[in-house]
């Protein structure tokens, strides 16, 4: 069965303090690994898709990387507006399966 585990569950950073979020996965036939941002009380917002090991994508202060077993979301010099829950999901031969997310808080 496809499985997605995200760590840590929660992360508190000072503004400007870079860090990484982890997404470990097992999936039959990876077709894509997705990162979403979810603000409180809202639906997830698509950030990135990664298709194969070694691939990297960047958007502003965020950079996503992918290996055969895990993905990292690197946040460089975060700002308070980066505070949100970041969800990882995998698309295999079945439907998209989500992790429980990492709740990121960035303090000014």
């Amino acid at each position, binding site marked *: 069965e496809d499985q997605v585990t995200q760590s840590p569950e929660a992360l508190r950073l000072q503004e400007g303090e870079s860090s990484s979020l982890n997404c470990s996965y097992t999936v039959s036939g990876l077709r894509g690994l997705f990162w979403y941002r979810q603000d409180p009380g809202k*639906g997830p917002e*698509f950030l990135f898709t990664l298709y194969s090991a070694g691939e990297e994508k960047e958007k502003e202060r965020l950079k996503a990387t992918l290996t055969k077993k895990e993905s990292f979301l690197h946040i460089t010099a975060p700002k308070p507006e980066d505070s949100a829950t970041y*969800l990882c999901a995998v698309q295999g031969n079945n439907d998209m399966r989500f992790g429980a997310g990492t709740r990121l808080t960035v303090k000014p």
Partner: protein
Amino acid sequence: DAMVIQNPRYQVTQFGKPVTLSCSQTLNHNVMYWYQQKSSQAPKLLFHYYDKDFNNEADTPDNFQSRRPNTSFCFLDIRSPGLGDAAMYLCATSVGTSDYGYTFGSGTRLTVV
């Protein structure tokens, strides 16, 4: 802007009283999904429509039903809500079983009293 719209944003219903949540999209995507998300948990897929074909997850309770009268609209019916059904319900769309990610609505927060 093309988007996925869910109504209402907040719904309060009584225990056992049927409730319907709605989702509309202007993206012309052929696949629509319903997810249930409880606090601090992963979104859980309830079912999806690939065009008109309905696909139910094996562990989705019979209490949950869905209708898709046309490409643009999809409804989630909860026949007899229990306290355990209180959650955020998310509608999403995609092109095919997408390798390009899903577009989500803002969700409906359901409270059961």
